[in-house]
């Protein structure tokens, strides 16, 4: 192993232990690692923004337009100018101008997001809930498959009832929503266990690094 790799492993081990030290309490080592992490990530983010955003989407097209003289290239000035309005915040007299790019971004974001949410979260989920009943009708699904299909419909209907806000939850609505919240909690419990297993795997990776690459206790 060369000298710089060794230094890298020692630095990584020191920073790993510094971050983990917060499990005891806030301390100077954690503060140092935290500030270093935030600072380095901001610096890295700025470099990425310049090379993956500013240069390819603003400076390069503008430069090409200027050098080739293609008039259609100047259309790119519109989004560039809208983006520049964010800097209006620097001038107290012109701060109000920032509302235009914000309005455009939120409008654009909602316009992009709403159809996708409708398709993925409503259309696809509704189809997925109904589809097994076609198999039941065709006789290709039986036994536990039928039970699962019925449970799924019951779960969806009860959970949906829980999310009715303009109806008072009393009588049948109350019971349906109670069953719905039970379904939700079962789902969350399962997701909790599943994710914790994933996190334990991440911890094992770090411990493996500390004991293997750094201390060389394990091979």
């Amino acid at each position: 192993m060369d000298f710089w790799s060794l230094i890298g492993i020692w630095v990584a081990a020191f920073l790993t232990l510094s971050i983990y030290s917060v499990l005891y309490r806030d301390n100077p080592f954690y503060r140092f690692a935290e500030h270093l992490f935030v600072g380095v990530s901001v610096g890295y983010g700025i470099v990425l923004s310049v090379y993956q955003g500013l240069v390819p989407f603003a400076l390069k097209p503008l430069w090409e337009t200027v050098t080739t003289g293609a008039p259609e290239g100047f259309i790119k000035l519109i989004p560039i100018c809208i983006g520049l309005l964010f800097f209006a915040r620097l001038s107290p007299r012109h701060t109000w101008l920032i509302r235009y790019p914000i309005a455009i971004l939120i409008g654009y974001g909602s316009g992009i997001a709403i159809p996708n949410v409708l398709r993925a979260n409503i259309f696809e989920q509704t189809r997925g809930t109904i589809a097994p009943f076609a198999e039941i009708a065709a006789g290709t699904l039986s036994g536990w498959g039928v039970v699962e299909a019925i449970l799924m419909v019951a779960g969806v209907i009860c959970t949906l009832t829980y999310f009715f806000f303009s109806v008072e939850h009393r009588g049948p609505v109350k019971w349906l929503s109670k069953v719905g919240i039970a379904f939700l909690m079962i789902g969350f419990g399962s997701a909790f266990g599943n994710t914790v297993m994933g996190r334990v795997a991440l911890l094992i990776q770090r411990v493996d690094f500390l004991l293997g690459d750094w201390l060389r206790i394990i091979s």
Partner: protein
Amino acid sequence: MLKTIQWMAVCLVLCLSVGTAFSQGLSPPSNVTAVDTPNDDGSSITITWDAAAEESGISGYQILRRIAGGELETIGDLLPVGTTAYVDSSIEQGTSYAYIVRAVSETEATVDSEQTAPVEGNDEWFHTGKIPLFITMLLFSAAIVWNIYDARSGKELFVRRIPGLEAVDEAIGRATEMGRSILYSTGLGGVSGVATIASMTILGQVARRTADYETSLRVPCRDPIVLNVVREMVKTAYLEEGRPDAYNEDDIFFLTESQFAYAAGVEGMMLREKPAAIFLQGTFYAESLILAETGNSVGAIQIAGTDSEHQLPFFIAACDYTLIGEELYAASAYLSREPMLLGSLRGQDWGKLLIFAAIVLGVVLELSGISWITTLLQRVR
């Protein structure tokens, strides 16, 4: 003389290949059509053909194309025998292409289909596959607009109790009494995220109360654009409450865009500033438990809300109150009690009722052997 020999050689090769093909029982792909791919930007042509019979001896297909007056060229890899369609995405708009589908046997004998008529790729203005989406959006919008007008007419609209939101005042009051700050995180989502938009709306309502109580409101942001929107919303809230002097722009700041650096930074803030109330509202990923656990360890009252279903269990386990998915979207109406937002909330409930009806009707129809609802839902792109 030379020409005659060449012709004879060509005929011999043709006879041999056709003979080989027939000896293998190889028949050319039938009903080959090439059409401009519908609902695209004109960058592809779709070629379809009939499936080969099981005993056809075909082991795969090769697609060949010809630009008008040009040479035949092979495109793509050898397609498996069950394939009946191929999308050619390597075309240029305004150029006509004709296609041949070549059936290939296991012994590499080949037989070609007839050449299709030339076809061009054209971009469409409307995506017909999105029409059901459009109609649904119109229905939802109509329901919301109707209810907004209903609410504006002075009719009182009922909203069921949401415990997580009733605790907002309690949390802000606690922070005020203790003289400590409130920490509000809008999560990791961008400005176009539905949860982030909902979170910023809740923040506006929280800011109104902190302006009233003169409580410090600290908002570390991960996205520079979200930062600007948040500053604008909080500033507006303070202005509307008549407390522009209490607004401190430095309390709403950019931390970093990196996920875990953001988590480390917010965690450090929690440990050092020990806020009395923590709001974690928006889109969260793997850092959710780190933030919620740290907030819990400093003794803050925590109100979380997200539509990230994988993070909800962690918030439920570590926070005092959790807004589950849709409750996050309902929060702004619940907190402000503005007729427009309440009407919108009831309109959304009508939308849910529509989904409810579609599921029940769909199940009944599917059990009766009628599958038009699932077919319709499947066609939506």
